[in-house]
C-alpha cells in the first residue's frame, strides 16, 4: 500500500532549522553505511538479507532503507541493549546461531537456502518461528520464540525505522532541533510537517 504522504520528504528539511549539525552528521554516516560484515560470512548475510526483506519491507516509491547494513553493524559490534533473557546468548552469538538454524529449517522443509525459497514459503517459516514452532537441531539451546521476540524483531524494526524514508512514509516530523513545533493541537500542523493526502 502506498503511503499517504507522497509529497513529503523528511530529508527536504536537511538545511532547515529542523536539523542540527549533530543530526546531519550521524544521519549522513548512517545512510551511506554498506552491508559488510566481518563476522557473519556470505551465507548468513544472505539469510539475514532475506529476513530483512520479509519482516521489514521497503517503503513503496521511496529511497530504500539500508536496514540490512544497520543490523549487520549491530551484530558485528555485538552491541546489546542492556538486557537479554537468561539463556539467550549475546547479540552476535545469538544471531549467528539463529541465522544458521533458519537456513537449516529452509533446507529441511524446501531443499533450498532461506534466501532462495519463495516469499510464501519464507513467510510460513517465519510465522512458525514467531509462534515457537521451530525445533530443528540447529537451534541447539536457543529458544526460537525468545530469539524472535527479544532479538530478531527489536533489532530489525529499530534499524528499519531509523531511516528517513520510513519516517517520511508515516508522516513523522523527523529531526526537530533547534526548531520544534508551534501548533500541537489535534488537527493542526506546522508548514514544515507532512500533509495527509486523502485517498
Amino acid at each position, binding site marked *: *500500500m502506498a*503511503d*499517504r504522504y507522497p509529497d513529503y520528504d523528511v530529508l527536504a528539511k536537511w538545511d532547515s532549522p529542523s536539523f542540527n549539525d*549533530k*543530526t546531519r552528521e*550521524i*544521519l549522513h*554516516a*548512517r545512510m551511506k*553505511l554498506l552491508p559488510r560484515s566481518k563476522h557473519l560470512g556470505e551465507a548468513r548475510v544472505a539469510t539475514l538479507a532475506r529476513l530483512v526483506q*520479509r*519482516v*521489514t*519491507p521497503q*517503503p513503496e516509491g521511496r529511497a530504500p532503507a539500508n536496514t540490512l547494513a*544497520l543490523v549487520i*553493524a*549491530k551484530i558485528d*559490534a555485538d*552491541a*546489546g*541493549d*542492556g*538486557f*537479554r*533473557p*537468561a539463556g539467550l546468548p*549475546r547479540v552476535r552469538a545469538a544471531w549467528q546461531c539463529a541465522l544458521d538454524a533458519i537456513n537449516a529449517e529452509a533446507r529441511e522443509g524446501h531443499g533450498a537456502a532461506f534466501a532462495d525459497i519463495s516469499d510464501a514459503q519464507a*513467510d510460513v517459516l*517465519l510465522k512458525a518461528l*514467531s509462534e515457537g514452532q521451530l525445533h530443528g537441531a540447529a537451534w541447539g539451546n536457543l529458544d526460537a520464540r525468545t530469539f524472535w*521476540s527479544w532479538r530478531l*524483531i*527489536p533489532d530489525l*524494526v*529499530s534499524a*528499519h*525505522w*531509523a531511516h528517513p524514508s*520510513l519516517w517520511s*512514509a*508515516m*508522516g*513523522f*516530523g*523527523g529531526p*526537530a*532541533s*533547534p*526548531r*520544534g*513545533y*508551534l501548533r*500541537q*493541537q*489535534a*488537527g493542526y*500542523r506546522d508548514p514544515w510537517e*507532512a500533509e*495527509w493526502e486523502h485517498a
Partner: protein
Amino acid sequence: MIDQRHDTLDHTPRCGDGRAPDPLVPAGWLPMREYGEDEVDFVIVGTGAGGAPLAAKLAEQGFSVIAMDAGAFFRPLEDFASDEMHQRKLYWTDDRLVDGDNPLQLGANNSGKAVGGSTIHFAMVSLRFRPEHFASRSKLGYGVDWPIDWREMWRYYEEVERMLHISGPVRYPWGPKRPRYPLRVHPMNAGAQYLARGAKALGIDWTETPIATLSTPIGKAHPCVYRGFCVTGCSTNAKQSALVTWIPRAIRAGAEIRDLAMVGRIETDASGRATGVHYHRADAWHFQKARHVVAAGYAIETPRLLLNSANAAQPDGLANSSGLVGRNLMVQLNQAAWGEVDKEVRAYKGPPSLAISEHWNYTDAGKDYLGGWTYMSQGPLPAQWARTLARTRGLWGQALVDEMNRANHTVGLKMVGEVLPNEANRVTLADETDQYGLRIPRVTFSYSDNEKRMMRHAVAFMKQSLEATGARDTWDQMDDTCHLGGTARMGRNAATSVVDADGRSWDVPNLWVCDGSVFPTVGGVNPSLTIQALACRTADRIGALARRGEL
C-alpha cells in the same frame, strides 16, 4: 558507522585539568576543583536523580565531594541528535540478564548511563507521592510504611520543584494544598486534549501535568520548543535534567565530577567500615579514599555494587545482614490503551505526557486490588512505536508497515501503576562477567495477581476514556513496565531494611544509599521528584549529624 558504545566519548573523560564541561554552552567549560587521590569526605557513586542533588548540597555545606559516573559528560546542544538510534549512548547497555515470569526490558526503558543519570532521557513528569503512600501499611493495609512522615517530604518537594522550575497548574486537583508551581503550564498537545476530553466525559478530574521543562527561558537555558524527542534526551536544555541543574551547582560549590568512572567495588577495613572505592577510568583501575561512600547507581547497579563488594566479614554482600540487598525490586506498571481517531494527533510533538489524571491514585473504593495508579497521555517515537506494535500485536512484514503509516491518527493513554514489594522480585549476581570483569546482574521479576487485577482495571478504564472521545479500533498494550525502585529499602530497623531514614546503612555506618533503591514502596506516580526530595533530605540530615558529631 552505527553509533553504539564505541563512541569516542566512551573512552576519553572530559572532566579533569581543573575543569568540567559546561552543559549549557557549546564547547564551554566550568572551572572545577579536583581532589586527586586524597581522602575526601564523600565519594558518591552515580550522578542521577539521587547522586546529583546530594553532591551539590553536601559540597555547599563544605564537605569535600567526588561524584563518579560510569557514563559520559554531555553538552546536549552539540552532542545530542534528534534520533532514537544515535541517542542509545545515553542508556545503560552493559550486559544484564532478565528472567522470572515477566522478564523486564531494561536499557532505554529505565536505565541511564551518563552524568545526570536517567534524568537525561526521562519524560519529566514531576509528581508528589500521595501522602498515604508514605504509610500504606498503617493507612491502607498493604505494603510497608516509610520511616519518613509525608509532611516532611512535602517541604522537600517544594525545594525540588523550585530548583527545577516545574511548570504546572495553578490548582492541583488531588491531595493536600500545595504551593503554586514556579512556572505556568505548557500548551497541551493533541494527546493531552484527548485525555482531558475523556476525563470530562467520564466525570473525573484531570490536569495539565507538572513537568520539568521550562515554559520560560531561564539563565542560559531555552524554553521547550515542543520537539518531542524528550525520552532520547533534550537537545535544547529546556529539560531540567540533573545534568543542567544540580551538576553545575555541585561543581560551583566545589564538588569534583569524574565522568566515565565505573566503580567496581567498595573497599572495607578490618572493622567493617568503608575506606573508599575501586573504580575503572581511562583504561585502568584506581582507588579513591573516602571517609564516606554513597551508592547512588539506581535499583539495579546499587545492589549489584553492594553484592560485588562482599568481603570475608560480610560474605553475602556489603550492608546485607538483613538479606534484603537486591530484594523487593519494584517497577511500575506501564500498560496502555490505544485507538484511532479522525483528526491528526501527530503524537511526536511536545513532551509525551502533558495531561494527567491521578483519580485512581487517590480513590480506593471500587477496586479489586491494592495500590494506586495514574494515567497520562503518550507520544511514542517511530522505532519505539514499531517495537510496540510488533511486540503487542504480533505485526511484521507489510502489516507492520501499514499500521506504522497510520501512526499520525493514533492516540494513547498510559498508566503508571504501583507494584507491591515482593521479596522474590530481585537483583542477584550472575556468573558471567562484564567488560570490567565484574559479575553482571540478574534481574528476576514476575507480576503478582494484584498487579494483574490493577492493570486490567486501568486498561479498561483508559479504553473507556478513549472511546468517549470517539476513538475506534482500540487495543491494549499489556506488557510494559517503567521506573525501578526498591532493592535497598529504608526502614525503621536493621532486620527489615537495608538503610535508615537518612539512607545510612545499618551495618556499615559510613556507607549510604541515595537513589531510587531506598523506596520501601513505589506508590502510583513517577519517582524522580521523590528521589530528589529524599536526596535533599539526606544532605540536610548528614549536615545535622555532622554538627552533632554523629557522622
